[in-house]
């Protein structure tokens, strides 16, 4: 059996509340040094809020009402605002979905990277600029000396995401959170950005938490996957295990909905019937029950815990003995 190294980042029972409803409800997962954890789920499942909660950047309407975030031995949720600011961008960084909008339109990209370094290091401007230039080269931007003096509107979306990655990594953080980093980009650029992220993980040993709804991205980059549904983790497993042997009906249906080349041309795309319940529709039972082909009275009455399926694989379902039925439904 694989020996799990001590986690670098662990999220323990994280709960986020908006207007009295737990939109993130007791999420736990951990990431080992240099590993990539993917959080997967539909829009509104709470994956982005989980990320923002990790950086202490929840929007004003949302509030962390429980749980802890540990980075090494430090509990980030116990830090003062001031200490959390010193941690953000230095020990834990984030890149966003819309790279162009995440840069100040009126400042050159080089100056923005250098400023990110100087936020956490008291060094002369010239030194920060030199580091920023090296960083531009590291993230694969051709002609960094020219790009340094350009403004965000002069760069493509893919270039802007490389700039965001430079800003996020210039202080050599331990953890990089990536909130749908490739969603707004062209498919070819997506692959380049993912390759870049993999390279940086390998070189620097940075751990990544990546949020996506794209199973292709997951397969490409992740070591472990947590599938989220309506604010809870439905299933969490090493990536290969999850793809080969999903142990939750939602995961199985999600995987079945990915179009395959072997599908008949113009065949209807597989979908999951129904919709995600809104927070005030959450009942006592499993939140997927209304859409689940395996659901029984027990599912509606009682929330299944995350059962350990062995090998780091856990899933929240009462009926995995009937998973074969899902494969029939999906086929």
């Amino acid at each position, binding site marked *: 059996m694989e020996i799990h190294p001590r986690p670098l980042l662990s999220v323990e029972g994280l709960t986020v509340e908006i207007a009295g409803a737990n939109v993130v409800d007791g999420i736990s997962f951990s990431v080992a040094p240099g590993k990539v954890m993917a959080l997967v789920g539909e829009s509104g499942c709470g994956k982005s809020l989980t990320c923002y909660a990790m950086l202490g950047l929840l929007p004003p309407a949302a509030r962390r009402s429980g749980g802890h975030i540990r980075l090494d031995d430090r509990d980030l949720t116990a830090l003062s605002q001031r200490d959390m*600011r010193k941690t953000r961008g230095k020990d834990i960084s984030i890149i966003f979905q819309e790279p162009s909008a995440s840069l*100040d339109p009126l400042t050159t990209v080089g100056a923005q990277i250098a400023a990110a370094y100087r936020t956490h290091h008291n060094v002369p401007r010239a030194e920060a600029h030199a580091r920023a230039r090296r960083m531009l080269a590291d993230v694969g931007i051709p002609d960094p000396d020219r790009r340094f003096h350009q403004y965000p509107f002069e760069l493509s979306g893919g270039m802007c995401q490389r700039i965001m990655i430079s800003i996020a990594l210039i202080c050599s953080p331990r953890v990089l959170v990536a909130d749908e980093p490739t969603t707004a980009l062209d498919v070819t650029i997506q692959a380049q950005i993912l390759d870049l992220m993999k390279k940086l993980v390998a070189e620097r040993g940075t751990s990544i938490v990546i949020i996506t709804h794209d199973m292709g991205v997951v397969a490409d980059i992740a070591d472990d996957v947590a599938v989220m549904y309506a604010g809870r983790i439905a299933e969490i497993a090493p990536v290969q295990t999850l793809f080969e042997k999903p142990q939750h009906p939602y995961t199985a249906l999600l995987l079945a909905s990915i179009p395959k080349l072997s599908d008949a041309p113009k065949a209807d795309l597989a979908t999951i019937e129904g919709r995600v319940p809104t927070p005030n529709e959450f009942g006592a039972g499993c939140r997927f029950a209304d859409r689940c082909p395996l659901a029984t009275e027990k599912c509606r009455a009682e929330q299944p815990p995350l059962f350990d399926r062995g090998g780091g694989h856990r899933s929240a379902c009462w009926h995995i003995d009937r998973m074969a039925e899902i494969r029939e439904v999906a086929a």
Partner: protein
Amino acid sequence: MLNYTVQRLIQALVAIFGVLTIVFVIMHLSGDPTLLLVPQDASAEMIAELRHQLGFDRPIWVQYIDYLHGLTQLDFGMSVVQRVPALDIVASRLPYTIQLAAGALMVAIGIGIPSGIIMATMRGSAIERILAAIVVTGQSVPTFLSAILLIFIFGVTLRWLPTSGASELRAMIMPSIALGALSMSTFARMSRIAIIDELGKDYVRAGLARGLSLGQTVFRHVLRNASIPVITIAALEIGNLLAGAVIIETVFAWPGIGQLAIQSIQSRDFLVVQVIVLLISFVYVLTSVLADLVYVVVDPRIRLVR
């Protein structure tokens, strides 16, 4: 960028030409100007004589060409009351109005913009509510009323400040406040909206995510981005201040062009009025050109793209 500048200057020239033409047309639409100049009991011959003397009996387009030609020579005609060039009369009063407008602009920007910043960044706080009340007051109390209230409180009751005239520097305090109050509210509201708008943008969240405080993010990134709409307002407000000076200067007996405008209207000295109207129009055009050029400095997207 050169293109952009040239384009803006051409637009300004067209606007100025339009203003000159409109002023000319209005002057002649309001009837035969000769009738304004003669005593009520003048005979028909006297009127015809004067009309011929002043050239008002020529075809309108000849008068128009003549008017434009005169303007190119900086000849705005003679004041019919004082018999000196209208331009000289306005020029002698202009420094007072510039002084007053500068004071009002200091009040407007110096109080308005910081208030806008505070209202945008400290939403829901007590200080925001206090400032909001001041802004609404400045915006809704008519200038002539606030001017009279100021005179009553600080001039008559407390006797801290002179009630009228321009004999000493502190005499400009009250007129500056009265004139700047409306602009101050406009600056406060516009900068508040611009900043709130910017605060919702992704780059602000990204700034916080790299470890900046909200204050640092505002001062390093937000203010510059929010300044673009505020510059537009500033250009308009400078023109508005000159127009507002007409009322304020009358209330405070301030010897600027606003007071002159009222006096000239009353004495039917229409060429002086014409100079003042043209001057205020030029200021509007000039400040909007200046604003366009300031955008170029602030926003690289204008500088580099066009």
